[in-house]
């Protein structure tokens, strides 16, 4: 039976589909629903979840045959490339994502028997990955960096263009935000050093100079931490996934240094201040 296709922004497909458990009547009904819908909408591939069945079943039209792939898994993947894809869920808007060209897939056929399939063709590999993504609660937009998701959402609403794939989809191994922390840490180190100076026989003038340093360094540390927080959050939006960019991490980094700076400046007022 022809089923209603899910279209963006319908979020009912945002769920992990369950495994196909038996290959009897219910399986055949779902398979027929998918094929009927594919024929009606002239689609070359469709996953069960796109028509509201929460099962890990997808069908791909190969020549004139509609081949079912139940519980598919990509076991190995190689040769990454940029793939520009269109999908009915996104109203056929082209979206470019990273895909692998060479795949080794396992799946179960219509009798529930394990089968393997090797794919080494960009178009076919993209289709498999896109369909399997749907079965695991992942759409094309989910594979975009965070800030591009928002751009894609605007494009879907007719405001602007679809984003262009960037190279840096993931958190960088070395972030520029560490420069803020590095400078702040050096300032804090010398603030800490100043607290020990009264232990030595140092002139009042020298102590006064160090206290001046403390008074200058303190607002600089605060400013650096403000700058760090703003830049870190800006930077986080560039990446699709970045655990070190979590706002909680940034808050922790800032709090630790601000508290340390406060302790230093208050201590310096009582210990280093010669007046």
């Amino acid at each position: 039976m022809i089923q209603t296709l899910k279209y963006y922004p319908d979020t009912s497909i945002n769920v992990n589909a369950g495994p196909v458990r038996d290959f009897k009547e219910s399986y055949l009904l779902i398979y027929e629903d998918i094929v009927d819908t594919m024929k009606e909408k002239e689609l070359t591939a469709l996953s069960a979840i796109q028509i509201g069945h929460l099962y890990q079943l997808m069908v791909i039209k190969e020549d004139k045959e509609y081949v079912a792939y139940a519980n598919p898994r990509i076991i190995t993947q190689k040769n990454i490339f940029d793939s520009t894809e269109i999908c009915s869920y996104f109203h056929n808007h082209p979206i470019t994502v990273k895909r692998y060209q060479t795949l080794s897939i396992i799946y179960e056929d219509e009798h529930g028997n394990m089968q393997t399939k090797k794919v080494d063709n960009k178009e076919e590999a993209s289709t498999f990955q896109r369909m399997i993504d749907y079965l695991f609660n992942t759409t094309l937009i989910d594979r975009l960096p965070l800030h591009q998701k928002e751009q894609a959402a605007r494009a879907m609403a007719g405001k602007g263009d679809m984003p262009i794939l960037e190279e840096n989809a993931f958190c960088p191994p070395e972030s520029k935000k560490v420069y803020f922390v590095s400078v702040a840490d050096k300032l804090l180190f010398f603030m800490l050093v100043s607290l020990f100076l009264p232990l030595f026989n140092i002139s009042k003038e020298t102590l006064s100079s160090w206290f001046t340093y403390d008074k200058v360094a303190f607002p600089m540390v605060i400013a650096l931490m403000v700058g760090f927080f703003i830049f870190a959050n800006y930077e986080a939006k560039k990446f699709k996934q970045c655990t070190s960019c979590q706002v909680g991490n940034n808050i922790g980094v800032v709090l630790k240094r601000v508290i340390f700076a406060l302790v230093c400046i208050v201590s310096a007022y009582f210990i280093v201040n010669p007046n």
Partner: protein
Amino acid sequence: MARLIVMGGGVSGHTAATFARKWLGDEHEVVVVTPNSQWNWIPSNIWVGVGQLAKEDVVFSLAPVYEKAGIDFKQAKAVSIHPHGNKESDKEYITIEYTGQDKEGQTEVIEYDYLINATGPKLNFDATPGLGNGKGHLGEHTVSVCTADHAVHASLELNQIFEKAKKGERQKILVGTGHGMCTCQGAAFEYIFNIEHEANKAGVRDMLDIKWISNESFMGDFGMGGLHMKVGGYVVSSKLFAESLFAERDVPWIIGAHVNKVEAGKVSYELLDGTMGEEEFDFAMLIPPFAGVGLKAYDKEGADITSNIFAPNGFMKVDAKYDAGAYENWKASDWPRTYQNPDHSNMFACGIAFAPPHLISKPASSVNGTPINPTPPRTGMPAGIIGKAVAHSVCDLINKGKEAHLHEASMAEMGAACVASAGKGLTSGTAAAMTVYPVVPDFEKYPGTGRDTDYTFGEIGLAGHWIKHILHHMFIYKAKLKPGWTLIPE
């Protein structure tokens, strides 16, 4: 007076014994038989394994805690169960062999009225040639974080790898599961990211090739069939989450893998698609599969009845449906509710020691017929909850009589939370906090996914690390039976 014997002093056994002691009056006796002198908060072993905690931070001596609680502690391993007694007496008993308390090697017979089997698993290193030493222990080629001592060893080995990396020698690190039928992927997941985190801190990350190997058929399965993660305000699948996490940290993966041989610096494996492969390493932490501890059971005449009481994998049979058949017939109701042995009403099993009726994840075999799938996790929160429920049942049977209602804790009706560390540090730490409900999917109640999607999700970040750290202290506090310990949930 009734005597309850608890075999095992891990998360489940300790929970059962301590609650039973609290709920039973002084006229009844609680005996704990465990081969270990120390209790180990196993989830924190991964931090010992990267040198961030000392062994002493994750263990404590059981003897003083049990002495204070009024529990008779026997540092010994249980050897056999005699549920019908022997020719001379009908009284049920177990035999034990001491491993400590200055009685090493001595055997003893202890009669019981009620028996709780909470022995935990045997770490079955020898299931994979080369992973074990042929005598049931960890082999020489890899390390483990399954025990505190293993973790200390792993830390020392890892330190040497870091030292070599500092000298400019490129090092290969392999972490994951050492067999196709492993559980506890989470521990390996935590360990690989803690290594990566420490390598960054030590400034040697660029000299390390870190790789993941797992029996999961997809990234993010976690032995539970996957779940949702909330990342940056978006809901994504654990598959995408895990793939992204590994990709952003430059950790490639091998999945659907059954490690079938370990040699010096090399593992051989078979994948679900039937292909064979090899992977070289300088340092490898591979989780072993679990098996029962090898307890034997005998009838009154001394005949071996082990197969009546234990499943073929060595775990104790309880009130589960063991003849469910093919995958499509599996139901949530197959899973045990009371953990009572079907033939002996005074015998229970909890934690890893009970025999699950079947897998949780979808069963899978390679095209060559080799089973490659995660086995059901029964550690952590479910182990504690089940231990407490079993203790409650036993106490009611003792206090209210044999018609007392048994307490239930089915994993098919139980939610569980798990916090997986991905790096330790007050401000730089990260952990993935996950909840699943129910642990065992109920495909009748929740068609399709088998789980309540509102309560099955995860989130990663610094807050997760703080929770993990708090849990570390909280559960050790609870296990030491400090004031208010009963208020801390399992």
